[in-house]
């Protein structure tokens, strides 16, 4: 039995998607969790790839930080879980 967390990737895996969305390399960008305040480089965040989109979670408290969903050629981005991304 494989634990759900073992399927998690990290921000490295969505490096290409992040360049599509932000126009620049983002894996070294620093995000602050709006739920617990944990600070982390994007490369080190937990990334889940459900069939319909990409979910990025805080490693400290598991809160959803970012979601990306591709619909008819458009990427919908939700960054509300982040207090900041620099």
């Amino acid at each position, binding site marked *: 039995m*494989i*634990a759900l*967390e*073992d*399927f*998690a*990737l*990290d*921000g*490295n*895996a969505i*490096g*290409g998607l992040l*360049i*599509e969305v932000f*126009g620049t*390399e983002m*894996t*070294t960008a620093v995000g602050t969790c709006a739920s617990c305040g944990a600070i982390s*480089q*994007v*490369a*080190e965040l937990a990334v889940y790839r459900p069939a319909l989109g990409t979910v990025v979670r805080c490693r400290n408290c598991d809160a959803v930080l970012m979601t990306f969903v591709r619909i008819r050629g458009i990427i919908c981005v939700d960054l509300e879980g982040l207090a900041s991304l620099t």
Partner: protein
Amino acid sequence: MAGTAVRGRLTWQTATAGSVNDETATVRTIGLDVSDWPGHRAGQHVDIRLTADDGYQAERAYSIASAPGEPLAITVERLDDGEVSPYLTEELQPGDLLEVRGPIGGYFVWEPAFGGPLLLLAGGSGIVPLRAMLRCRRSAGSSVPARLLYSSRSWEDVIYRSELDDAADGVEVFHALTRSQPPGWAGYARRVDGQMLAEVAWPVAQGPLAYVCGPTSFVEAVASGLVGLGYPAGRIKTERFGATGQ
């Protein structure tokens, strides 16, 4: 939309498969010919996109196996339930086309200027980006001290076997074979644990730089182990490949 591509942005390019080389029974290295390839850094990856006749597309990320300055190559492990890897490792022929996007990555990269001593920890196919780092170190003539701890299921599963055995450039290689070992095996015969890390890892006082890559569970265990040895979190770079079902 090649004509509208903005320099610096990532665009899909057509790649022609060149040489294919079977590293193990389930792992293959594929040379990719991309016109105007901008070059890459050790540790980066490319996204590969396949389009089926019905228009269905599948995209996957694969670490670049070659060093900066060498032709682009990726090493792919066939996953039993994979959607893309069975095609790449068993059906793709030299001359076939696929779409490539990259190089991608600015976190999990190493170059000689970063210094060391360098501690590379690989689980299974996690060896791929680390091998690119070692080839980079070698081709640059770098004397940065380097150690590799490489965990595999068996000797037959070790990727780049003969290349890693050549310690001529001063890299110390430690193998951990977790499921079966050849007769007379004198290396580690268990999964990486705290004791093994304590024996292999550079002392913290030397300011080592660690790169951990492989299945998520491997990366989590090893990164925790290094923190337990006193490695600062900022000196441990991680890249997780997910679960392989092993």
